[in-house]
């Protein structure tokens, strides 16, 4: 163990604590205190506003559906990537991470180019069939699903690799069918990884702003979500409501990371 000079250690600690307090802890704390500047009136007012309530509902609907999609897709892709051999597997594995490096704004733009009803690649045809994606819920779900897509996979793949396939082969040799192996062996052994992945994806989905703003058209009382309503209210000088909704969003995301932090060490020991 490197013995660091006590004075240097103190300096490093102060530097780290100071940096984190100034950059994260204090500002986040201020949002909480701003929200409760006048007791619960800001929150009460926010909840009394039908447009705000609608936006919160939209966020809930969009997040839950896109998390469910990412759950099913993520677990399926993870199992395929780890347990099977197929052509193009390495390319797929690399492409899966792409959404993490793409700007939410570019995500919005890309979906717009393909699905907008006027001159989108598929949008025009879908519009003729009566299916509306851009400026409505399906597009918002797609944008949210896009940005959170790798999160479940990044949690599940390492766990699948680590547990290996011995247990699955043992189950097969004992007569279990593929479905039974999946239900009784594979899924129970990756349960916690799935939970983390879902919690992270949920946090990401609730907070998505840029991509959703572009594909939703940000129509007040219709396609507005919690995050886009924060922007609108702040810019329209309704700061108490902006802070109140921000507090709710921050509260939800803090709960998500606390859940992950509490669950994770227990499972790894």
């Amino acid at each position: 163990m490197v013995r660091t000079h006590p004075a240097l250690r103190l300096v490093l600690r102060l530097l780290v604590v100071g940096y984190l307090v100034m950059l994260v802890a204090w500002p986040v704390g201020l949002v909480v205190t701003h929200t409760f500047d006048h007791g619960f009136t800001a929150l009460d007012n926010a909840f009394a506003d039908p447009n705000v309530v609608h936006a919160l509902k939209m966020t809930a609907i969009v997040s839950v559906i896109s998390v469910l999609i990412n759950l099913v897709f993520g677990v399926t892709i993870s199992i395929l990537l780890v347990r099977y051999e197929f052509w193009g597997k390495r390319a797929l594995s690399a492409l899966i991470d792409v959404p993490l490096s793409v700007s939410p704004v570019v995500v919005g733009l890309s979906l717009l180019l393909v699905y907008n009803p006027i001159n989108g690649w598929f949008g025009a045809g879908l519009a003729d069939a009566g299916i509306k994606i851009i400026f409505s819920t399906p597009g918002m779900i797609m944008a949210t699903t896009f940005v959170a897509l790798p999160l479940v996979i990044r949690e599940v793949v390492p766990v699948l690799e680590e547990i290996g396939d011995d247990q699955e082969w043992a189950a097969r040799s004992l007569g279990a069918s593929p479905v039974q192996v999946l239900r009784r062996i594979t899924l129970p052994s990756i349960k916690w990884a799935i939970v983390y992945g879902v919690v992270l994806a949920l946090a990401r989905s609730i907070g998505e702003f840029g991509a959703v703003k572009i594909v939703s058209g940000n129509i007040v009382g219709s396609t507005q979500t919690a995050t886009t309503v924060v922007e609108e209210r702040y810019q329209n000088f309704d700061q108490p409501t902006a802070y109140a909704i921000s507090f709710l969003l921050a509260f939800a995301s803090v709960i998500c990371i606390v859940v992950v932090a509490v669950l994770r060490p227990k499972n790894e020991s």
Partner: protein
Amino acid sequence: MSIEITGVNKRFGDFVALDNVNLSIPTGQLTALLGPSGGGKSTLLRIIAGLENADSGSVVIEGTEATNLPAQKRNVGFVFQHYAAFKHMSVAKNVAFGLEIRKRPKAEVKEKVEELLGLVHLSQFADRLPSQLSGGQRQRMALARALAIEPSVLLLDEPFGALDAKVRKELREWLRRLHDEVHVTTVFVTHDQEEALEVADEIVVINEGRIEQIGSPDTLYDAPSNDFVMSFLGPTTQLNGALVRPHDIEVFAHPVENGIPARIARELRVGFDVRLWVELLDAAHEEIQVTVTRATQRSLALAEGNDVWLVPTSA
């Protein structure tokens, strides 16, 4: 015959794991597949179990053509080197797994699990999780789990390889006794010749994807068909251009007829045995190894620097 393997080939890329293997494994016996790591023995076992598919050739188990049968339909019990315990299930649930898959009545499952846990001496651990067991206990659980489905053959892949030396020796003896009780056709893979010699009724020596020799432990040890088998089954040394076992050389302290003159260079006592490194007093001055008992060493007063005469005794 319980397992009939005909013309099996298997490659992994350029690597030939099995090269036209033909093998019959008799019913009710304990057969060891013995050979160095990477020699193909585990691949052969996995092909029998359906965990791997052969490139060509056929596998017949108990008269049923199994070559294209998936693992879950072969009714084969498989025990993995690293136990493959179902980590999220209790010991009893692990053992019950195959029976529950077969939708046996609850009472029957319970009775069978109790019986098997008794057989592997794990009754008091029924409700524990595998992580709360020692390695040896986990492997016994895995064995009970494989036996629960009353397999037509029981396959064990280096079953004791991950255990420490003492537990390995205990489990080895226990496996032999268990087999004498249960009599299921058993095939196990090992790279440890001592394990094979001690436990098996029949040994199949496999090297570089080919079968070198098949026979009883005695046959293999006493009449190895080639140098590979000879050297794999025990220590050897070169004498007069032939492989000899170090303890199959008689040592004399005085000149004898046909005796090869040599001088003791070093000696090392290992328990009951004494290992001698002797330098042959011929042109090449080769050094070879001879093993004698402690009693011989004493009675002949063998010591470093002494001249001795060697006579190979093997038949």
